């Protein structure tokens, strides 16, 4: 049996089996979920020896027919682009479960069911090699996330969760239309050759034909996919659902949202937009990169003026994800690799920031910066962890954030499709603002004197909190010092994709110039 199948289905099995638990036995429910997620993670580590980094194509492919008339199959597999994201999902879930121990105090059975279901969906999104299957996973995620925010969230959770749902659904509808059109179009070509029944959602087939679609049509398809993914990223100006979702979600919800769910958007851009529509991608690279750069600065500036810590971190995501998008659309191997490592880095450091905010929230039940001050005095060890997460986000060299930011910037600088240094120059100014909003927040929360009586007796980290923070620190430093361990997985896939795109450009150059 394929390891990948095991990694994918174990969370589902776990979540379904939770339904047979007695809802009163909270301890067993918690323990079981944690064990399932840890086993999933351990099994996912066995993907590493089974994954050949030298091969840029899909590996560990499993293909089972499902709806033959539509040629929709249960097709899964991984390549360099998705490999790290699968590992990120399996790594973050146990940590999110650990943090749930402290933050979830009602309907535990339903909660852990939802959380494991969410993990099933996340992994599914990253391993699907069939657009039909992909779409199912993509939409599946909405359900647990909708409930996690809506049931276990804070005061304004209903507004936030509906907003989250609507934004995402609007985007996916356009994607669905594009998938259907694409399926019929390629299916038609195949049928003319005497293969199939006029429809296919097989990604491996689609990617051979989609890049040959004429530019006018592929523009529309590109936009339909891009809208869906850019909402998820979220790319400016489609970002306003994120701060609300983050602020209202419980800590583990925010962690998963930031660490993995946002990456589904950037992953989608790489996997589908760039790979299926290289010409349109090149044509729209300027527009999307401009939005990315605006997002970098805009997110940072708005983060600066927030009074709510969680909202501040949420806006910082808008800024950081801008680097990822910029790297992707630089269409260079450097930028692409930077984008991939930045996705992982952002997952780790922003996930950790949300955990740290959660640590404070569990003790004080407020997210207002002004309620804090001088916390370093009562929580010295927490201070160290919070500072590491902060400097990782600031992009300090030696920690993870720097590698991705630097490579995406260098990619944008030497990009053959973005014909201006302006992208990099403006994006690079984001490094200043990142320092401003994070350091300023840290100063107001952690430093100064501990004047607020409510903060006088805060306990330092619990054992539980240690266990969820230490693994993150290890990887934050590891990626910062020796990113090669991680980047070598995607090296060849990135190169291959960039080469494909740039070849497409040469091929289509006349059309572009005619315009």
């Amino acid at each position, binding site marked *: 049996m394929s390891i990948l199948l095991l990694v994918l289905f174990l969370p589902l099995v776990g979540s379904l089996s939770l339904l047979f638990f007695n809802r009163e036995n909270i301890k067993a429910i918690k323990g079981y979920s944690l064990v399932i997620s840890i086993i999933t993670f351990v099994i996912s580590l066995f993907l590493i020896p089974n994954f050949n980094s030298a091969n840029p194509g899909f590996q560990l492919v499993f293909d089972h027919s499902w709806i033959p008339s539509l040629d929709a199959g249960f097709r899964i597999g991984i390549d360099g682009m998705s490999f790290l994201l699968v590992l990120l999902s399996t790594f973050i879930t146990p940590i999110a479960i650990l943090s749930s121990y402290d933050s979830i105090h009602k309907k535990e059975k339903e909660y852990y069911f939802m959380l494991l279901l969410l993990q099933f969906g996340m992994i599914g999104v990253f391993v699907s090699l069939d657009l039909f299957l992909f779409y199912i996973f993509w939409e599946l995620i909405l359900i647990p996330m909708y409930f996690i925010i809506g049931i276990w969230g804070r005061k304004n959770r209903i507004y936030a969760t509906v907003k989250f749902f609507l934004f995402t659904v609007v985007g996916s509808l356009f994607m669905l239309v594009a998938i259907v059109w694409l399926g019929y179009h390629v299916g038609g070509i195949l049928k003319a050759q005497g293969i199939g029944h006029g429809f296919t959602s097989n990604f491996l087939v689609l990617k051979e034909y989609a890049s040959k679609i004429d530019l006018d049509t592929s523009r529309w398809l590109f936009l339909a996919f891009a809208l869906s993914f850019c909402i998820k990223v979220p790319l400016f100006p489609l970002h306003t659902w994120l701060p609300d979702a983050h602020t209202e979600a419980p800590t583990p919800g925010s962690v998963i949202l930031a660490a993995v769910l946002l990456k589904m958007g950037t992953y989608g851009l790489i996997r589908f937009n760039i790979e299926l529509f290289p010409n349109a991608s090149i044509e729209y690279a300027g527009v999307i990169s401009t939005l990315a750069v605006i997002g970098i600065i805009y997110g940072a500036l708005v983060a600066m003026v927030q009074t709510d810590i969680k909202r501040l971190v949420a806006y910082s995501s808008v800024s950081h994800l801008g680097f990822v998008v910029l790297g992707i659309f630089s269409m260079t191997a*450097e930028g692409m690799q930077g984008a991939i490592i930045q996705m992982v880095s952002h997952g780790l450091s922003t996930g950790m920031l949300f955990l740290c905010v959660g640590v404070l929230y569990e003790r004080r039940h407020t997210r207002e910066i002004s309620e804090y001050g001088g916390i370093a005095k009562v929580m010295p060890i927490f201070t160290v962890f919070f500072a590491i997460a902060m400097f990782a986000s600031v992009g300090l060299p030696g920690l993870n954030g720097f590698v991705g930011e630097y490579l995406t910037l260098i990619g944008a600088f030497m990009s053959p499709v973005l014909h201006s240094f302006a992208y990099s120059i403006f994006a690079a100014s984001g490094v200043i603002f990142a320092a401003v909003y994070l350091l300023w927040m840290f100063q107001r929360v952690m430093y*100064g004197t501990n004047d607020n009586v409510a903060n006088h007796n805060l306990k330092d980290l619990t054992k539980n909190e240690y266990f969820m923070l230490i693994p993150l620190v290890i990887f934050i430093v590891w990626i910062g010092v020796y990113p090669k361990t991680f980047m070598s997985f995607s090296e060849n896939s990135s190169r291959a994709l960039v080469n494909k795109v740039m070849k497409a450009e040469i091929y289509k150059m006349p059309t572009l110039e005619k315009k």
Partner: protein
Amino acid sequence: MYELVKFIPFLPLLGFLILGLFGSKIKNEKLIGTIATSTVGISFIIAVSIFMSMLNHTPEKPVIVNLFTWIEAGNFKINLAYQVDQLSILFTMIITGIGSLIHIFSIGYMHGDKSFFRFFAYLNLFIFMMLNLVLGANFLVTFLGWEGVGLASYLLIGFWYDKKFPGYRITWTGDAANKAFIMNRIGDLGLLLAMFLIYLNFGTLDYQLIKETLVASSGTLAGGGLITAIALLIFLGCTGKSAQIPLSGWLPDAMAGPTPVSSLIHAATMVTAGIFLISRNSVIFALSPTALSVVAAIGAATALLAASIGLVQNDIKKVLAYSTVSQLGFMFTALGVGAFGAGVFHVMTHAFFKGLLFLGAGSVIHGMHHEQNIKKMGGLKKYMPITYFTFLIGTLAISGIPPFSGFFSKDEILWKAYSDGNIVLWGTLALAALFTAFYMFRMFYLTFLGKERFDHHHVHPHESPATMTFPLIVLAIASALGGFLGVPHALGMGVIPNVFEHWLDPVFEDAIKIIGRGEGGAVHTSEYLLMIFSTVVAIGSILLAKKFYSNSNWTTPKRLVKNFSFSYKILDHKWYLDNLYYIGFVNPIFDASQKLLWKFFDVKIIDGIVNGSAQLTNNIGEQTRKIQSGVVQNYALLMLVGIVFIIAFMVFK
């Protein structure tokens, strides 16, 4: 031998890790101090032995020691590699040598602090990062150190995070730490962009490769826009780290940190990183006369501006801070006129005497129970004889009195500025030097001589323990004699060679060749005259300071403040630079972000559209719902209307 270089940064890193992870368990201050100091001390010994072997056998080219591949993507590949050459080994010796002394000093100074281990962990982290900065074989390793020392500086400025610190828009020490980090980041943007331009055009970030490429194609690149842009962007980074205009404001506020930190980081080592970086890339700067002029002009302007502010400061550390900014300005001017050797020489002598002065100030603050206002001191000579004597040597050295070290290095710079033919540069620096001698002795008189102005009931001044006086004595000896390493040609008469610049010749020879200005001719007359002139000026301003401040009523200075109240106000407000930044940049950006971007664009426009369309859907639903009234007649009527419409449509189509 050269392979050993990797241990130089590794040992302080080890110290940092040991103290950082287990320091809270070690209750013994002596043990903590020993761990921290010995790691740096051993690094110093290694550095000296590498230096020795270089003396015996000078390598033809810089030796590159590779550790591992750090970042690799596409065609971009950066190694974590160290470069051993005359320049890097010199800086390494300064950093680890003075670093060890300041570690020893800190054992006494930080005695009894509740976070003793944390302090030493940070100091070791700083040394590690600073060594990466100077030893790095490419821009990115230097940048790692560059940002790393920024981090260490941030952590140490805000070390006493619950202490208030007065300043413009600054309440806590943490605010000062933020200011330092953020102003540095503005400079870092320049450095980042410079790196991108270099990589894009030369395909590498290795110093040695860049240098070779540039030397080979110097004809085509010289004076071009590309090279000027790169040089100016690098220089922007330097203005941040080395506190030059326009990014100079953070250094005086960095005095919020413990005094040994001010000595090590904000005087002797980190702030000279800018001079190092320009020296390391001397060829880039040599190729751009425009950039060199900018460096010289900014350096001289900063030297004078900071010196003028130093005239009116009353905080012992602030006086030293402004003098550091000013002295750094001297160094940049030297680089700007192509006198790279002289600039680096001043880095070294300045590290001696300014390290000494700050430690002396630390000793005074320690003995005065954390009083820093020199107007509340006086007559400390009899209580703290060693501090007094060593401080005097430091003050003489910075004032440029022969034969103390500052005289040689400063006069070298003045002479190079003069012989460059730029009389304005020279005049600016000479005036700054005049100010320096004055405010340094003003501080000296107010602190150690005259009437005792402190409250005898609460303050009992005392000499510091041996851990603190020992480093003072060592640095005093270095400050007194260090100048003889770099005796100017005019004074050496061919008998005493300028050992220092000779040592650095291989590093700068390409740059000097490009600038095309060798060592001046044999005519030394004007150089002698200048030396005599500046010595007379320095002695004059010392006498003036004595006249002003030895009488305890300070009648003359008080009268001057009254008569020139306008100028005094400008100086007292540091030329209003901080105010300008806030009014010009910080406030508008903050207000725009809050009112325009967040509250208006996000909330009103984007969410307005989203919520509006939701509202619209709702309303449509509300209205159409009314049609579903359940009254059959209405449905029949609607059907009829519909049929009429369809027929009409078919007929008139």
